[in-house]
C-alpha cells in the first residue's frame, strides 16, 4: 500500500515569532517548515528534544499545531529577470509588477546561507569603483571589491548619497543590489520611485523587508541581498551592494536571541552578533576568474545614535570593513553635500586603485586641509596674515567649494582631477570663491563637451605627477581662463 509520508512536528511552545516543536526528526537548520494554512517557518536551531523555528509570515501559532517539513530549504531562484524588480527576502515580488518570471537557463537556485569563499578565490583590488562623486573618488576612494562602511547621523544625507551612487552607475556595467533592512514601508516605496524616475532601476535589484514585516524576515534581508550579489558576481559582473541599515539588522538579531533565551552580552546583544555580521561582510570581495571573476563592493550602512560612533555595533562594523565614510548632519546643514567628514573618513584599500596623479593630488589636498584647519584658529586672532597663509586658507575654501556636489550629478574621473587641481593653479589664486561657485557647472560642462578641453582631460593618463597636471592647466586654453575671469 502506497502512502503519503512527510515529517511533521507539533508546536510545544510559541513566543511571538519563535516556536519550539516536537518531532521533525531529520530537519536541519535553514529548512523551511509550514503548517496547514501555509504559514512558513525557518528552522533556526536543533535542541536535544526540540526544534527551534522562526515564523516568516504574519500569523498566529498556537501550541499543538502541526508543521510539515517542506521540500525546500532557505534558497532563492535568481536570474537576470530580477533586475529592475523589488523583492522581499524570500524572493516574492513586492513592486506590484507581477510575479518574477524565469530568465532562462542561466537561472540558479542558490542557498541563502553560504560560507564566504577562502583567500584562494580572491585577488588584489586594483580597480577603482567610480562613484562620480568628486569627494569620494579623490579623497576617500573605494576599490571594486572593497567593503566601506557608510556611517552617520540621522538626516545627514546617507540615503541620498547612496541613491546617487546607483544612479551614477547607469552607463556602466555595474549591477546594484540595494537591501532595505527594516525601513518604513514608505521609505521603501520612495526609494523604488526615485530609482525608477532616474532610470536607475534597470541595473538594480531592490531587496526590502519593511519595519512592519516579521523580525525573522528582516533578519534574512542582507543574506538574500548577498546571495543575489553573488549570482551576478559569479557571472563576471561588478556588483555594488548596499545594506541599509546594519544597525537595525543587529537590533533584530538581538530581539530574536533574547526571545530564544540566549544570554545577552554587551548592550544586550548576543555573543555571536560579530559573527552574524562579519560572515556577511566576508562574502564581498574581488574574485579570481575561476570563481566568476566579478566583484562585490559592499557598502553597509549604519545610523548613529547621538553622534556616537564608539558604541558596540558601529565599532564592530568598522573593524570588519576596509574603511568608512563618516556623514555629519551639521555639515549638511552648512550646505556641504555629500556631508562627508573628510578628516574622520578612511579608505584602507581605495588608495591602491587610484592612478599616481590622483593619489598625489589627494595627498596634497589632505595636507592643505589639515594645515588650514590648524591655521584657521590662529587667523581669527590676527588682523594681517602672511601671504602664504592667505593662499593656503584660500585654497582650502576653493577645495571645500569643489567637493560640494549637487545630488544626482555625475562628474567624470578626469574632470574631477582637473577640478581638484584648479585651486593649486594661478587661475584661481586671486579669484573669490563665489566665482568658482557660479562657474562650477560650466567648468564640468566645458571639460566634458568642449573638444579642445575634452582632449586635455583625456590626455591625463600620460601624466606622472600632480605638478605636471597643474602646469598643464596653467598653460591650458584661453577658454578656461576667460571662464574664470568672468
Amino acid at each position, binding site marked *: 500500500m502506497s*502512502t*503519503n*509520508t512527510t515529517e*511533521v512536528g507539533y508546536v510545544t511552545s510559541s513566543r511571538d515569532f519563535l516556536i519550539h516543536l516536537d518531532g521533525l526528526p531529520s530537519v536541519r537548520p535553514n529548512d523551511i517548515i509550514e503548517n496547514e494554512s501555509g504559514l512558513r517557518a525557518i528552522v533556526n536551531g536543533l535542541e536535544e528534544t526540540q526544534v527551534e523555528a522562526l515564523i516568516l509570515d504574519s500569523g498566529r501559532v498556537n501550541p499543538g499545531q*502541526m508543521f510539515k517539513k517542506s521540500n525546500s530549504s532557505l534558497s532563492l531562484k535568481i536570474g537576470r529577470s530580477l533586475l529592475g524588480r523589488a523583492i522581499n527576502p524570500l524572493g516574492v515580488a513586492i513592486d506590484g509588477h507581477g510575479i518574477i518570471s524565469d530568465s532562462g537557463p542561466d537561472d540558479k537556485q542558490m542557498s541563502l546561507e553560504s560560507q564566504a569563499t577562502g583567500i584562494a578565490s580572491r585577488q588584489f583590488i586594483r580597480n577603482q569603483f567610480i562613484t562620480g562623486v568628486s569627494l569620494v573618488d579623490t579623497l576617500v576612494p573605494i576599490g571594486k571589491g572593497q567593503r566601506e562602511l557608510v556611517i552617520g547621523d540621522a538626516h545627514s544625507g546617507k540615503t541620498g548619497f547612496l541613491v546617487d551612487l546607483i544612479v551614477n552607475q547607469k552607463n556602466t556595467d555595474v549591477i546594484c543590489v540595494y537591501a532595505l533592512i527594516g525601513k518604513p514601508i514608505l521609505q521603501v516605496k520612495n526609494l523604488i520611485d526615485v530609482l525608477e524616475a532616474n532610470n536607475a532601476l534597470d541595473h538594480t535589484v531592490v531587496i526590502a523587508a519593511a519595519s512592519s514585516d516579521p523580525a525573522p524576515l528582516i533578519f534574512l534581508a542582507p543574506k538574500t541581498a548577498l546571495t543575489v550579489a553573488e549570482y551576478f558576481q559569479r557571472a563576471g559582473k561588478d556588483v555594488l551592494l548596499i545594506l541599509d541599515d546594519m544597525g537595525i539588522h543587529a537590533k533584530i538579531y538581538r530581539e530574536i536571541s533574547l526571545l530564544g533565551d540566549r544570554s545577552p552580552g554587551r548592550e544586550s546583544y548576543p555573543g555571536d552578533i560579530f559573527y552574524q555580521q562579519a560572515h556577511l561582510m566576508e562574502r564581498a570581495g574581488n574574485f579570481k576568474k575561476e570563481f566568476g571573476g566579478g566583484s562585490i563592493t559592499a557598502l553597509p550602512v549604519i545610523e548613529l545614535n547621538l553622534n556616537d560612533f564608539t558604541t558596540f555595533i558601529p565599532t564592530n562594523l568598522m573593524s570588519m570593513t576596509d574603511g568608512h565614510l563618516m556623514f555629519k548632519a551639521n555639515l549638511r546643514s552648512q550646505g556641504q553635500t555629500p556631508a562627508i567628514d573628510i578628516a574622520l573618513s578612511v579608505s584602507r584599500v581605495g588608495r591602491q586603485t587610484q592612478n599616481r596623479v590622483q593619489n598625489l593630488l589627494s595627498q596634497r589636498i589632505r595636507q592643505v586641509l589639515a594645515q588650514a584647519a590648524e591655521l584657521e584658529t590662529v587667523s581669527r586672532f590676527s588682523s594681517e596674515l602672511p601671504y602664504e597663509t592667505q593662499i593656503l586658507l584660500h585654497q582650502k575654501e576653493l577645495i571645500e567649494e569643489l567637493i560640494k556636489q549637487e545630488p544626482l550629478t555625475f562628474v567624470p574621473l578626469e574632470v574631477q582631477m582637473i577640478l581638484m587641481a584648479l585651486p593649486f593653479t594661478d587661475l584661481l589664486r586671486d579669484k573669490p570663491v563665489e566665482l568658482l561657485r557660479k562657474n562650477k557647472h560650466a567648468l564640468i560642462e566645458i571639460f566634458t563637451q568642449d573638444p579642445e578641453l575634452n582632449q586635455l582631460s583625456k590626455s591625463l593618463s600620460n601624466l606622472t605627477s600632480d605638478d605636471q597636471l597643474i602646469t598643464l592647466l596653467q598653460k591650458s586654453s584661453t577658454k578656461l581662463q576667460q571662464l574664470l575671469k568672468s
Partner: protein
Amino acid sequence: MSDQIINKILETTFTIHDLRQKIRILKNFVGHSLFASQMPLDPEVNNFTSWLEDLGSEFLAQFNQSNYSTLFGEMEKKVESLPNLVIYFAIETTSGQLNSVGKWLRESYGSNFIFDPKYDPSLIAGCAFVWKGVYKDYSLKAKINENHQQILEVIKGTIGSQNT
C-alpha cells in the same frame, strides 16, 4: 516506583488525554487525603470513583506526605516521554471505539504504548498517523490526491458518454 504506578494506570488507559486526566485526578485525590486542610477535592473526582476503587487500597498506600510531590513530578515527566502515536480519524470516535483501538495497539506493539486520537474530517475515510515525527497518510484524501488526474479522466469520460 513511579514506573510501576504508571504501568498500573496504563493497564486501563489508552489515550494520552485519558492518561493526563487520570494522573491529575489521582494527584488531587491523594493530595486531598494526605493534606485535607490545604487541598480541596476537585468535583471531577466523583466521576472517577469506580476507577479509584479499582486501583485498590494497597496501590494508594504507596503515597505518603514525604514522597507525594516527588512521585507525581516523576510521573508527569514520564508521561511526556512515553512513545506517542498520533492517529487522525476521518470520523468522530466513541470512547468504546478508542478503547478497542488502544487494546489492539497494546497487543500488537507493547504495553507502554499510548496514542493521541485526532479528528480530521478532510481525510474523508481511512486514517493517517504520526509516529516519531513522521506523518503517514492512508486516507482516501491521499489516494484521491495521488490519482487526481486519472480520477478526473474517468469522470470526464463518464460525463461525456452520458451526454452522447
